[in-house]
């Protein structure tokens, strides 16, 4: 059984190489290999359903063993990885046909899959980090294949990723310095014996790496660009799967390496949740709200979905950070659900772009008649995303609300609701602008996407129903996972939650009242604004984005213009701008630094003399270095 983990992990990599080489023979050889191996990986996953395979040693390094493992928690994420990757490859076949460098594209696609699979299967921190880095830069190469703008976006992405990864690296190295073994078990043992300061350092540094990937505000700035500029089939992979690696990492960090009790010991527990987790909860909640507002402002459909992803991953992180069995279950479940419906929506918009060539919502409209399947997919997607029964998003969001209620974290609950309510606004905009309304003249000959591109839409739409109606399917694994982490799972049935459990005692009144408050907030914002206002044709306000000639936005068709006016002040200090300023400062500083190299011989030789003088001086004053 041990070897099989290696086989599983190797599958996508081997597939990638074979697809690359096969592509040199014929494109269908390439497709065959790509589809076959991604499907194979997906099938192999099911052999590990509900099992825990520990510590398959695949190498040794610096005295530490490198191990692979799988457990129900990582299985969930491995499942998402392989499943969505398979669909992405299916979708790609028509979508990117005819582009240059396709062999490389599929190689990268399968390598990203392999890297993400590696993260989920990692049993020690070196392996984890190695695949984490591999994921970052292989996905970088995918992103920058999306055209001119994608290069800038990719650059931002890789820089942020590397910063995050390095932060994580420091945390890992700190542990290595003490434990000399980085197998998860040893890590958690070490952390349980370490001083609070050490644990906090570890927590923060490791967490930053994960937050960047999970795009938790304020470390999210790479995501809107990267997800929207990436090639159509890559966006679902990024939004659906890649950012979930952050969620997986957080789960492992919070409950694998540490535990609620341990985190609780780090600081006085006056809050419903241990302090560190509480902070994470707040960051997640802020992400939910702000990203929602930003999503509302977007003209670009993919950008809209990208901001939506930030908001939705906020729910996942919020759930996971809560520390309660229900919250964690909700978070994990939402991770799965988000993977499904967000990928679905990206596939849909990918299809639209494939047919119309644009993703600017103001240029689209009325596609419902031309692309009915896509419309249905979009409908399923937005319904699921908004958390409306009976689709899957409803269940997981409801679990999170309930968990918040249990903990009496009212503010967070309100913020979560605001996020949901806001989601209605942008999703309505999305489906209205694209599929409803008037069909522009130039798109009157548009056809439905080809079958291979429809297939993922069908499958994912079906899954939103499946997991909505039978949440027990997912809860089965999640519960096993919670058990694995040492958390008592909540009770569940195939169709939902049995009587007498937390979920069954839904305090509908409470939830409703919070929901009403949320509506009032949104309405108030709406009413506060003048109805008409002259708007410049080229308003350069860019919602916290870099204002460069390429990214100048045209808001003359602003659908939710008023929102922009409201939240403008909030984003005056936008995180992105802060990074920009910081980068600029670094650059200026660096520019000064390099002026040391003047090119003048006399300066260079004087450096030598000065250096020796210092030593001589030290010697003359008594040979004390400090």
């Amino acid at each position, binding site marked *: 059984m041990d070897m099989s983990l290696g086989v599983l992990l190797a599958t996508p990599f081997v597939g990638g190489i074979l697809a690359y080489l096969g592509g040199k023979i014929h494109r269908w050889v390439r497709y065959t290999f790509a589809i076959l191996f991604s499907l194979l990986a997906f099938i192999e996953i099911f052999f590990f359903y509900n099992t825990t395979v520990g510590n398959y040693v695949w190498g040794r390094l610096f005295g530490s063993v490198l191990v692979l493992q799988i457990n129900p928690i990582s299985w969930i994420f491995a499942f998402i990885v392989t499943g969505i990757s398979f669909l992405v490859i299916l979708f790609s076949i028509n979508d990117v046909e005819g582009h240059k460098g396709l062999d490389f594209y599929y190689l990268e696609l399968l390598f990203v899959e392999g890297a993400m699979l590696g993260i989920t299967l990692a049993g020690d921190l070196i392996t984890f980090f190695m695949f984490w880095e591999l994921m970052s830069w292989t996905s970088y190469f995918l992103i920058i294949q999306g055209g001119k703008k994608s290069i800038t976006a990719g650059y931002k992405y890789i820089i942020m990723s590397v910063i995050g990864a390095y932060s994580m690296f420091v945390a890992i190295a700190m542990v290595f310095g003490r434990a000399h073994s980085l197998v998860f078990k040893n890590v958690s043992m070490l952390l349980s014996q370490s001083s609070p300061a050490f644990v906090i350092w570890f927590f923060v540094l490791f967490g930053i790496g994960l937050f960047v990937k999970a795009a938790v505000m304020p470390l999210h700035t790479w995501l809107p660009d990267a997800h929207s500029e990436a090639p159509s089939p890559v966006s679902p992979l990024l939004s659906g799967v890649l950012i979930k690696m952050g969620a997986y990492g957080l789960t492992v960090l919070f409950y694998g390496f540490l535990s609620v009790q341990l985190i609780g010991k780090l600081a006085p527990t006056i809050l419903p949740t241990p302090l560190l987790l509480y902070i994470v909860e707040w960051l997640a909640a802020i992400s939910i709200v702000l990203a929602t507002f930003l999503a509302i402002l977007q003209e670009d459909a993919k950008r809209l979905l990208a901001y939506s992803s930030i908001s939705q991953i906020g729910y996942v992180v919020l759930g996971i950070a809560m520390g309660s069995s229900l919250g964690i279950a909700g978070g994990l479940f939402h991770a799965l659900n988000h993977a499904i419906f967000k990928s679905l929506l990206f596939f849909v918009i990918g299809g639209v772009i494939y047919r119309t060539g644009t993703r600017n919502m103001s240029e689209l409209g009325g596609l419902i008649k031309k692309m009915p399947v896509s419309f249905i997919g979009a409908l399923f997607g937005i319904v699921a995303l908004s958390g409306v029964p009976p689709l899957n998003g409803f269940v997981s969001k409801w679990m999170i609300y309930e968990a918040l209620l249990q903990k009496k974290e009212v503010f967070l609950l309100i913020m979560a609701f605001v996020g949901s309510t806001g989601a209605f606004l942008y999703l309505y905009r999305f489906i209205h602008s694209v599929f409803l309304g008037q069909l522009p003249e130039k798109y009157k000959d548009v056809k439905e996407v080809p079958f291979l591109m429809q297939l993922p839409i069908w499958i994912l739409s079906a899954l939103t129903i499946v997991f909505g109606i039978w949440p027990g399917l997912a809860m089965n694994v999640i519960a096993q996972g919670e058990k694995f982490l040492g958390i008592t799972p909540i009770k569940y049935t195939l169709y939902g939650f049995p009587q007498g459990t937390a979920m069954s005692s839904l305090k509908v009144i409470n939830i409703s009242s919070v929901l009403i408050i949320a509506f009032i907030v949104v309405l108030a914002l709406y009413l506060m604004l003048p109805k008409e206002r002259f708007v410049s044709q080229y308003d350069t306000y860019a919602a916290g984005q870099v204002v460069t000639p390429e990214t100048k936005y045209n808001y003359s068709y602003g659908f939710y213009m008023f929102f922009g006016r409201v939240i403008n002040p909030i984003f005056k200090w936008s995180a992105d701008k802060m990074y920009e300023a910081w980068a600029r400062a670094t650059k200026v500083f660096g520019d000064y630094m390099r002026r040391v190299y003047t090119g003048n011989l006399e300066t260079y030789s*004087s450096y030598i*003399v*000065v250096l*020796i*003088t210092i*030593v*001589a*001086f030290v*010697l*003359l004053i008594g040979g004390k270095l400090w």
Partner: protein
Amino acid sequence: MIRKITYGIFLGIIVLSLILFFAAFPFGKNKMAVGKYYLKNDINQTGAANVVTAVTLDYRGFDTLGEVTVLFAAATGVAILFYVLEEDKKKRERQVYPNFVVRVGSRIIFPFILLFGSYIFIHGHLTPGGGFQGGSIIASGFLLLYLAYPGERVNRSKLSVVEGIAGITFAGLGLWGLFTQGNSFLFNFLPKGQLNMIFSAGILPIIYIAIGFKVASEFAGIVDDMMCEAVCSGGEK
């Protein structure tokens, strides 16, 4: 000005610290450790009357190989820097009118310089001279010839061959000692002979002769390059 004073002070500090350091090992004091060993064992180990030569070529012969290599590299480097295409060379050649006294005088002195140089490196193991000094003297003879006949050049191919063969002789002798005799590079496998005779000190005189040839040809090459540069590009600026 401030710059000058500053660096003056800095260098003063450095000199002071150096004085401080060497105060512990004063001038004229015997500091020998390995040196004693050489003075004691020179005659029976190498048979060279001049201990400096014994050190240079035997105990530290490996250094000398390096030194020869450095010179070789420098000569090659100069040749690279002054490399001019053959056509350019001809174009730039100019007739120069040298002093008659210098011209004829040099012609007559030149053979004696060669002889003297040879004398110096052949007696390298007996007197303070050696391959380097002898070689330099011979090269200075070439310099003299250049001063007398600025337009002419030595045959560079021949020089190159001489320096190559001399180098091969040195390294080859070292390897010969390594492979056939004492399993040690530059092993002195020839008889040590009688002190103060030319045929003494084993391979040392051979090495010094090789060095003499090598140094002579290399310095001559450098001189050739420099003079050619001076003559050929004289009218350019």
